[in-house]
């Protein structure tokens, strides 16, 4: 009997020591995260309502987690990625013949549900062929489009904001006015807003990895060996020999 107790005690003593989660541990921390456009506040602690964060929120801190009890999700898992905004403030002639629009609407702040074609544009009917400049959303998820009259500068401020993942802005400098840009949207295949009619004599095919840092710049014809290696900072280092 004593032998069995001694055996059990020895076994327990040799087992790895395990600790339960300890809120006083330095391994745990609580981060205050601030979310954009997360919706209303709860009545208690000032936290944003969870259900609204996932829709439009944008985290202001990286490498953070949202936890429900012991179940945690990274912001990436919750798709709470950064938001990218591009702004242009311009006029064409600076005269009264300019028009500025967001999908046929005037100055204002527009969420995706407010408009059907996601672009902001300025054109000038006073100039032959009606030149048009703008910002066209071409990414995965639009955040907002804002158009303001910068009357002090006789110019127009266009802002297009979108989720960082697969973000893409097209900046047209075309003819036919803003209506021409509108008529080409949505653009399934990237094409000129007004084709030039020139002849192509070459093609370029490519692979794009916007969220991977590829290190290396090479140009080579004929036979070669491509070497790709993932380094400690998750970059893909490329060599061509």
């Amino acid at each position, binding site marked *: 009997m004593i032998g069995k107790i001694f055996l059990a005690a020895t076994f327990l003593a040799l087992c790895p020591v395990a600790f339960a989660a300890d809120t006083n541990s330095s391994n745990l921390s609580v981060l205050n995260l601030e979310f954009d456009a997360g919706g209303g506040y709860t009545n208690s602690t000032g936290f944003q309502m969870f259900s609204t964060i996932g829709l439009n929120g944008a985290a202001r801190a990286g490498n953070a987690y949202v936890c429900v009890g012991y179940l945690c999700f990274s912001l990436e898992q919750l798709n709470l990625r950064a938001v990218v905004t591009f702004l242009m403030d311009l006029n064409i002639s600076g005269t009264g013949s300019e028009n500025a629009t967001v999908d046929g609407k005037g100055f204002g702040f527009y969420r995706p549900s407010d408009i059907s074609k996601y672009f902001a544009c300025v054109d000038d009917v006073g100039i032959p*062929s009606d030149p048009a400049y703008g910002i066209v959303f071409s990414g995965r998820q639009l955040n907002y489009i804002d158009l303001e009259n910068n009357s002090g500068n006789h110019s127009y401020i266009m802002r297009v904001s979108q989720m960082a993942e697969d973000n893409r802005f097209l900046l047209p400098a075309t003819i036919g006015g803003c209506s021409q840009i509108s008529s080409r949207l949505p653009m399934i295949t990237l094409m000129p807003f007004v084709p030039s009619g020139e002849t192509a004599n070459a093609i370029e095919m490519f*692979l794009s990895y916007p969220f991977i840092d590829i290190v290396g710049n090479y140009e080579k014809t004929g036979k070669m060996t491509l070497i790709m290696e*993932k380094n400690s900072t998750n970059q893909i280092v490329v060599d061509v020999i």
Partner: protein
Amino acid sequence: MKGLIEAALVVAIVVGATAIVVSTVTPLISQGKSQQDFISAKNTLSEVDSAMQQLMLEAVGSRRQIDLDVGTGKFIVAGDEEKFKIRLEGYQTIEPGSTIQEGNIQIRGGSAVEAVEEEQSDGSTDLVLRNSLVTFAVKKIGGPSNWSQINTTSMITQFTNRRTGTTVHPKSGIFINDKPLSSAGFGYTQLTTQSSNIASGSIEVFVNSTAGISYDAVFTLSSASDFVDLQVLNIHGA
């Protein structure tokens, strides 16, 4: 004598027939070769993509080695744009300025884009992208090993619609999470490739912003395109 004439006639017929066959078949062979180059280039990129997809999922230190042959085409590793490209000359398969997607491979057609540095009258240097429709220019600031103060609100120096001859000088701005301080800091601008005859040219703008967020913004102008394509990549610290 008669035999000699007959022999000469036979030789003439054979030579003539051979000439006809060669002149008829050569374009077909050439066309076939072009088609073969096109398919071969696509297969090459598919192989590269497959290796990249695997590397993304694997641990640090993973490595792939691939033997490639792009013939007369040009294989381009454009690390500054996060792209692998193959350029083939002499093709008129798709509308100039258009980009089509086949799986993960994008294909665009066009003639020439100029991506050059140009001195300005005030002594500064601009990085200029130009095709037949558009000129787009950004201030040259610093370099990858020589960061300098950079502000995305004042970097675009010229945006010209060449069909109408109108030039605008827009104020601009790139903001991450709409933080005002993310638009400026230290960094550089550079052309990813300098040439006067490329299918597309890009300007890379790297910003290590005062807000503690760093990113790359890549402005690309393709041949026959009447727009500049902007993507913001490698966002860190947001």
